[in-house]
């Protein structure tokens, strides 16, 4: 099958690769470009562990064709930290023990980041709604909700 070229900005860097027309963004990021932050959990858009930002909007990369991302801004959890410095959201996840096995964490952080970017002071209900597409089997969600609410009230949270 003939491969197609695709170019986009990934976490601020220009990246280019060739993909099968049927390739999804998840496999392209992981196997093509070596960004292992988004995970495979279900392959059918139900678990949220593959969540990435496409032009600032959270999207399920397992259901996104790679070729549709031409020229877009893609952001994953591996690009969240500001160099060696963690974002308040990341620090809040650490402080609240909002990760246990860590498998849902990149997707969870990405969904939370999108929420705080459009709504810096969310209510608890809004937080719950924002992560409702992200399944966590370890924490029971409460530490995650607490972390996101804490990050929202932290100074500098808007950077997220």
């Amino acid at each position, binding site marked *: 099958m003939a491969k197609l070229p695709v170019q986009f900005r990934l976490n601020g860097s220009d990246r280019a690769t060739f993909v*099968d027309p*049927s390739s999804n963004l998840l496999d392209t990021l*992981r*196997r093509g470009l*070596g960004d*292992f*932050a988004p*995970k*495979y*959990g*279900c*392959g*059918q858009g139900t*678990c949220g*562990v593959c969540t990435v930002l496409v032009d600032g909007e959270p999207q399920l990369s397992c259901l996104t064709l790679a070729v549709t991302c031409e020229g877009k801004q893609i952001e*994953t*959890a*591996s690009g*969240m*930290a500001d160099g060696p410095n*963690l974002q308040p959201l*990341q*620090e809040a*996840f*650490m402080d609240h*023990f909002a*990760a246990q*096995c*860590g*498998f*849902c*964490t*990149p997707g969870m*952080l990405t969904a939370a980041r999108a929420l705080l970017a459009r709504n810096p002071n969310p209510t608890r209900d809004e937080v719950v709604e924002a992560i409702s597409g992200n*399944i*966590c*089997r*370890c924490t029971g969600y409460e530490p995650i909700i607490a972390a996101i609410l804490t990050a929202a009230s932290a100074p500098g949270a808007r950077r997220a």
Partner: protein
Amino acid sequence: MATMEMRKEIFADERDDNLNVIGKGVQRQDMPGHVTARTRFFDDHAFDGMLHLKVVRSPHHHARIRSIDVSAAERAPGVKRVLRGADVPVNKNTLLSLINFGKDDEPTLAVSKVSYKGEPVVAVIADSEAQALAARKLVRVEYEQLAPVFDVEEALKPGAPVVNETYPGNYFEYHQRFDHQKLRFGDVERAFAQADMVIEERYQMSPIEHAPTETNGSIAAPEHNDRYVVHSCAQGLFFSLGTTAKIVDLESNRLHFIGGTVGGGFGGKVDSLTEPLAVLGAMLTGRPVRYVLDREEEMLYGSPRGAERIYVKDGLMRDGRIVARSIRSYFDAGAYTRLSSYAAIKCTAHLPGPYWIPNVSSDVYVSYTNRCPSTAMRGFGVTAVDFALEVQMDRLAEAANMDPMEFRILNAYRDGDMKAHRRVAKNTALIECVQVAADRANWPLSEQARRASSLGGGAGERSQIPATQLDARGQIGRPDSRSGPPTQVLPPGTMRIPLSKQPIMDGARDGRATPTQVPRYEPQPVAPPPMPAYQPGSQAYQPPPAYAPPPAYQPAPSYQPPPAPPAPPPAAPSQHGAVRFSTVFGTRRR
């Protein structure tokens, strides 16, 4: 407390005794990796030339395999290798064979028949996942469907379809002969006859899928030093290494397992579901091979917590004392053993729950059905029976017209109580737990219940082993010594096991004997009676632990040993790995 003291002694020169972390949050060492997405799970590794393995699975619950045709799949684009059962060096295994427990019963790739929907039959290895999936569709397997059995009790009836040829009775054979785990303490039947009320209920659990967000999988690759590196999701990395080494017939030092980072396990990643085929693929292709279950496979093939059916029958006095508890329980192992054999042992060890009951009887079966094999999950073997017991306790409390908290305090174990397993209860704290729970919930307790303590009341009659009634087969968890045909009617749902070996008995009981008078509990096990065929204490020969008489069954002083006890049978052939080591498996530490 005793445990605590002992540890203090053992680690006295290694520990800082200021206990300065209790009550404080300490950061997990893996947290920075998690929040920066730098944590590497098994699938987060890149290899040049990595191949992808996909498995053809049985579409039937139970079927004979008539033929397998892989020729079209082998010719498909990108396909590097197609594996069948004959390609697997040791194509039969059981997980606990690493500790010599149970017979090898599960093939890596099915050869002659399939026993559950989703059972692996053929593996296809190709350059890309898409090519492997396309080639998988070209494998032709001809099946002859067989009648399935899905119910744990139906499976044990005579004439039921044989699920697992290794265990033709559809039950796990403990020590090659017992169809269940048995517990007998006192005389439940007599106690039922004398109880004010007898309450019997049936409890049925469903199988539960762990559903980790990361599905099971592994990547195996040839390493530069003639080893294979395996990135694995395994919860028990060395367990998985040993299992893989056995199945692919490789010395374990040629396997380099890397893991410990598990994307959710909960017990569902102890089965080595993918590692053996990934390593075999790497061995046969010389390339890295990735085998990851998709979500549907995780549901079909990844073991669940086994469903259990539990019958609880209790004898209750009007004042709230439970005087007898009889339990019959069936673990649904699915088609193969995996860890269900261990679950039933844990279940039996847990009975009758944290309560002192003077008459206890239980029969716990592991039953094979045409379902996905079940395995470990968070307290497996105990959680389901605890559910049954605690619901039962509420029902009993209601029947006795008592507060459920007070009812538990009344019946709880206290220090010094003799447990049904003939061990003295120590460090008991159920009474205190209930008191604290009641306090926190503002649940009113009577003065008497508030004053109750686990530290008192466990002596006297409660610390004795009662005269124990043999069951209908003349057994207390030991071989039937009768030679003639049985005359008694079996309890419903049970069956007789023909003896394959002459049993070794420490007593002259013949099954019609009166209830054995058991001596009072003694903490130190007494040496077994001498047997001419071996030297007690000899280093060269250890009698098979299954036949070793437990200390509690030492004959009463009046007992005369039989003139010529039969010679002990040869030790069971070692399947693989280490010696038996656990009290849990019916063996004794020496």
